[in-house]
């Protein structure tokens, strides 16, 4: 099964890339992914302040500032993984540092 992990939080903490790399929880998470050979693709997104949303309505392209959804939490990273089943995806997601203050949404990939 392939799953996209949407790494979410409210951006209040917003660690830098250097801080993320030095975080022992994040290191352990990366080591776990490597051991499982589960990561297909991973990217961290810049904060939502730099987001742009495009909508097309009645043939007209509407561009607006900010994220698509007005929610408390924002997607801060996307990791594509391949693993046996949802339980393994849950185990992987639970190891991500953002799970401790934000949340990780697990979305099966339409294949």
């Amino acid at each position, binding site marked *: 099964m392939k799953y996209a992990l949407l790494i979410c939080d409210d951006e209040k903490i917003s660690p830098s890339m250097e801080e993320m790399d030095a975080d022992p929880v994040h290191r352990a998470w990366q080591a776990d992914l490597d051991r499982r050979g589960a990561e297909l693709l991973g990217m961290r997104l810049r904060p939502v302040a730099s987001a742009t949303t495009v909508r097309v309505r009645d043939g007209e392209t509407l561009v607006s500032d900010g994220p698509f959804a007005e929610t408390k939490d924002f997607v801060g990273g996307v990791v594509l993984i391949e693993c*046996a089943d949802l*339980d393994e995806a*849950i185990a992987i997601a639970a190891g991500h540092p953002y799970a401790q203050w934000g949340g990780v949404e697990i979305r*099966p990939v339409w294949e």
Partner: protein
Amino acid sequence: MTADADVVRAAVDAAYREEWGQVVATLIGLTRDWDLAEDCAQEAFAAALATWPRDGVPARPGAWLTTTAKHRATDRLRRDTAGQAKLRQLAVLARAPEQPPVEDIPDERLRLIFTCCHPALPFEARVALTLRTLAGLSTAEIARAFLVAEPSMAQRIVRAKRKIAEAGIPYRVPPAELLPERLAAVLAVLYLIFNQGYDEPDGARDLAGEAIHLARVLIRLLPDEPEPRGLLALMLLHEARRSTRTDDGVLVPLERQDRSRWDRTLIDEGVAVLDDALTRRRRGPYQLQAAIAACHATAPGPAGTDWPQIAALYAELGRLAPSPVVELNRAVAVAMADGVPAGLALVDELTASGRLDGYHLLPATRADLLRRDGRVDAARTAYEEALALAPSEAERRYLTDRLRTL
């Protein structure tokens, strides 16, 4: 050999109750197709009704039904190309013997229970799926039991099955490190089914009985786990008091129930099951609740109840599974054990904390304690407060009665 129609009917009914979940679980295990599994199980039971009167009831009805259902599944899969591809993957199914196998079919129901109760499914869907696939209730029966329109219930079940397939929820017994958490989820589903049947009795299907039956199955499948035994004991001890719980639609509190009408057989079994669980020396929330229920069930009356023991059990329960409702119950036990002022002090603490705001049993408990302390005016105010919050007619009538007799 032919068999009497009534005997066959009874045998098929018994097999439905005992074997439905096992047949469905085995078919899901083989095909991973939940709808196909249910359809073929249904057909196998129809085939039993048609052929058992002529051929006699087989020695092992479960094996007969499972084999018949497997054949139906094979036939159906052969009919379409997608199914044929699937069949080639399912070597086990393709090799299904023509005669019922002599060896025991491994019990697949454990995988089914854990999959139905997976935490990635909405709680109501776990309950519905468990009743449909393990207990064999129809969607209409489940909808009626939970006061939901049948199409909504059908959709709930369809969505849950779709999520199992699309999100990759595994069909398995969870590994040891996940077992405590996942087992707790299974027990919560069974206890909700029981309580639904207990609070909203339905003449057609006895949900409390279904929950007790499923708990017995779970114990056979996980004999070393104490908490399923704790849950079974708790349900049996509640069930023993069921007929005395209301009188003509009015809630009868424990201290006023006619103890001579409690079911002694169920109480004895509940206590024995609980003792068996406790010897395993891993106490959990269900064992503690059952121990409290056992204190009540074995006491000759309110005065002869071991209240210090009950207060201690509530304290232990509060440490294992903290909850303001448990603290409220502890306050009642403390009032009985150490006197009303000690209990009232705990209730006042709870009231001040605001954690039970809007819960009718908080002012109702306070009112009972004030009444016993002879503080009639304060008791009246508290009963009126409880009456405004009480959710059911039985409870409103009880509180009205109390107010009148102050």
